[in-house]
């Protein structure tokens, strides 16, 4: 398919990018890896007048340690995330989930920042960074600010980013000792989006679950935390029975979509089954 006409700029600095975006207003779009935006353009589902390509902003690429957190540049590709030693050591959940995104070609071009800014609730990374209690760093005409993951996703394909703002990095707190994780992605074919995904984190303290966090993919218009499950799991015995009981609450407060791939009731069921599996794997419970 053929996109409609648009202007294209490739700024050399972040401030130029912010300026270009701000001038473009509502009709300007950021392009990074292009794995979400280009299909929309080609299907003529989006008609931006201006594309601001961040590709030249090398400072937005890569991972660094900042105290008790990792700062992951927004242009870091999914592939780089899966291979990065710091991420694998301190936030293995993110590396595991990034490795399930689409296919190798997409993972080599698609970026973490692009995936989060696109805010598709069926995308894998939003629920993961929600579970990791990450913070998103944005740069805009009014300067820099940080946004908690819980506040970043506003609605279907909608984030808290303001016009002219660029997502620059994601700050993810390091998981300390005792944490286990699992991303349970349920999809029909390997390249398909998740029908439901469960990002599970468990900190064990001997035979007990000290803390559990569960982020759900594609169970609403934004990624959601399964708070009732988290509360039920915290302090419980690290056993299949206890975690299954906790996971029975996984879909509470969610409003899963009803679409071609799955009905809402099936998604609710899957969220409970997958949460059980995710928690058990994260807690290393056989």
């Amino acid at each position, binding site marked *: *398919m*053929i996109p*409609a*006409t648009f202007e294209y700029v490739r700024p050399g600095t972040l401030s130029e990018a912010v300026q270009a975006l701000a001038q473009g207003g509502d009709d300007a779009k950021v392009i990074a890896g292009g794995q979400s935006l280009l*299909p929309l353009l*080609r*299907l*003529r589902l989006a008609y931006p007048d201006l594309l601001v390509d961040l590709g030249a902003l090398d400072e937005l690429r890569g991972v660094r340690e900042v105290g008790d957190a990792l700062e992951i540049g927004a242009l870091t590709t999914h592939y780089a995330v899966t291979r990065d030693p710091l991420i694998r050591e301190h936030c293995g959940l993110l590396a595991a989930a990034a490795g399930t995104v689409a*296919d190798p070609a997409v993972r080599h071009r698609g970026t973490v920042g692009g995936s989060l800014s696109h805010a598709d609730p069926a995308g894998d990374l939003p629920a993961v960074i929600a579970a990791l209690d990450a913070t998103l760093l944005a740069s805009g005409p009014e300067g820099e600010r940080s946004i908690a993951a819980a506040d970043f996703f506003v609605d279907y394909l909608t984030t808290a980013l303001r016009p002219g703002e660029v997502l620059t990095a994601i700050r993810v707190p390091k998981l300390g000792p005792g944490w286990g994780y699992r991303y349970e992605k*349920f999809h*029909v*074919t*390997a*390249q*398909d*989006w998740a*029908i439901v995904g469960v990002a599970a984190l468990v900190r064990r303290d001997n035979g007990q679950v000290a803390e559990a966090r569960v982020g759900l993919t594609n169970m609403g218009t934004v990624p959601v935390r399964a708070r009732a499950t988290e509360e039920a799991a915290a302090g419980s015995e690290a056993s299949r029975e206890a975690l299954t009981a906790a996971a029975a609450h996984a879909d509470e407060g969610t409003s899963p979509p009803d679409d*071609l*791939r*799955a*009905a809402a009731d*099936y998604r609710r*069921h*899957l969220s409970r*089954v*997958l949460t059980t599996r995710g928690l058990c794997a994260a807690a290393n419970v056989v």
Partner: protein
Amino acid sequence: MTDTVNEIGKRRTRKEDARLITGQTNWTDNIQLPGLLHVAFLRSPQAHAKILSVDVSAARQMPGVIAAYSGADFAAEQGSLPCAWPVTPDIVIPNHPPMATEEVRYGGEIVACVVARDRYAAADALEQIDVDYESLPPVLDMEAALTDGSPKVHEAGNKSFEWVFANGDMEAAFRDAPVVLERTYRQQRLIPCAMEPRAVVCAPVADEYTLWSATQIPHVLRVMLALVTGIPEHKLRVIAPDVGGGFGSKLQVTAEEVLAVLLARKLGRPVKWTESRSEGNLAVHHGRDQLQRIRIAADADGRLRGLSVDLLADMGAYLMLVTPGVPLLGAFMFNAIYKMDAYFFKCTGVFTTKTPTDAYRGAGRPEATFGIEHAMDDLAAELGMDPLALRRRNWIAHSEFPYTTISGLTYDSGNYEAATARAVELFGYDDLRKEQEARRASGDPVQLGIGVSTYTEMCGLAPSRVLGQLAYGAGGWEHASIRMLPTGKVEVVTGSSAHGQGHETAWSQIVADRLGVPFEDVRVLHGDTQVSPKGMDTYGSRSLAVGGVALYGACEKVIAKAKVIAAGMLEVSPEDLEWTPGRWSVRGDPDQGKTIAEIALATFAAHNLPDGVEPSLDSDATYDPESFSFPHGTHLCAAEVDTETGQVRIRSYVAVDDVGTVVNPLIVDGQVHGGLAQGIAQALYEEAAYDADGNLLTTTLADYLMPSATDLPTFATDRTETPATTNPMGVKGVGEAGTIASTPAVVNAVVDALRPFGVRDVEMPCTPQRVWRAIGQARGAAR
């Protein structure tokens, strides 16, 4: 055979791959011509509507636009897209203008077009066309479509035809039958999704036209375009350059091809159109889509008494080239490899407001094979028999060939025992049954199922006489010619138009084998009506079984001509010569001989040919098969079903096929692997889905789920080789076998895994949600 160099059966890599894989070839979309214009088509966004008006005036004002037209602009000249298979005398074949003029009957039907200097300008201008529709009710469900009150797709109603075949006493077969099985299966609608989308280029020069098209059928297309457009056939040249897959979807005369010719004629300029994937999902003809009502009467020991098949086949909105004939190929295949007393087949062709259906890999045969093989596993379960034992009870024994089946075809050869024995061995059938028992006993959340498919198919389409009896509009022969070049190299011209099958390699092997020339010295020409003037093209696993045999015949003619010339050169009588690969030599004095290259050079010089011998070694042969060929095989699938989520994972898959003589095992393996992928895709993944308004929901490959290699198991394949007796090469064809066999094997495995829950069937595709619901419903029913 002693008179060959054993090229037949060699595992050669494919000659054509270097240019295909490295992008050195010309696909239709790569073709550039001076002054080439680009066409974009506006398609109906509604399933069913009256066209009140089409206003293209704004589009005509857009930059770069040369012309814009609506259907009214073509009304006088566009004719009706052809249907070459009027299966009954009273069949309803509705008028089918390439560009709709008064009414649209499926989403994706063309209503207008723009011709511009580039694709971008054409796409932009398309958005400026204003069409005013008055919505009409969609017709989506075949059973509802046949009721009196249904809205009509066409004035003449929603029934296109009813076709019946009957043999044997059905009443007796069902009377007092100890077991009667009744099932209704749904063959979902599929979208072919060839890797190369359709593309057309048409160039006018004076009153002559050259059309390049990503088509399977350049020869048939030329005839049909002449008939539809009125351009004399001899002023039309059709070229199928390298074509990236078809699977039946390019066995068609499309609206876009006809309109490309009409636009080139109107504008006097070359035009090009290449479809996008989403455009293709809407407008390429779809496949399958049947409702199968099957009844089987059997004795208590499993012996089949009678089989009754009542099909509803969705034609979609119009009849395309062979639409009505597709489900009827199944008439001869439902009885499959089994003996029975009576058989009844009825097919009703139904119009709906959906994309027209037509041939898709297997075309009628996979549908039938699914129906009977699924029913056989169901019957085995009903009888408490092992599904393989039920088949052994009923299949045609090796000693019984040739065997005329209840549907009237004579199977020349087959060895179901051998293929099944090999499959059972490779599969580890008994061990898997034990594991299944153990999982059932322990209540394992992941259950194991085993599915069987002992298929046959009819290939080598087709004996022209039979096609005539079935009211098909053309013959089923194929043509080949050989040009012996003075330097001993060989040019082969074939009417079989390859689009990925590897003809250039296989044909070279046949020639090298018969004429004893090096494989590398053979060049194969095809796919251009000016280069290869005669042909019936490629579909229905016919290339080798018909086109390959034609080439074999052409080789024999070269050898016979060479004999006479060699005799003259050696100054002996032809009777004193004997043929060894590549050489005629004097019997008893093998040093005295002439190679085919020497004979070719002498023929070219023609200085000293025997009296009355023409100076040519070239030959032509046209082969009309005396019968279909009948590949067969046994496929076994083990599937693990996660009963908590409904997810199906194929644990192991064994395919043992008997395709007769194998020319190139590597190509055969590739055909089987690809076929399996496509058949498994129907079982588990793919479905053209519509909403209640008749909008296609699966317009992109994000919605229409094609499996990738990641989703498929490692296949275990093997072959038995029972040569066909109806052609001199013993070949049968392999293009569709994998697709035909695998769908029922997989679905049978899924259902087998779930039988302990009381599940009797899972509708295709067996998605996790469908499997989960089937378990839930069975459990609910049990309570």
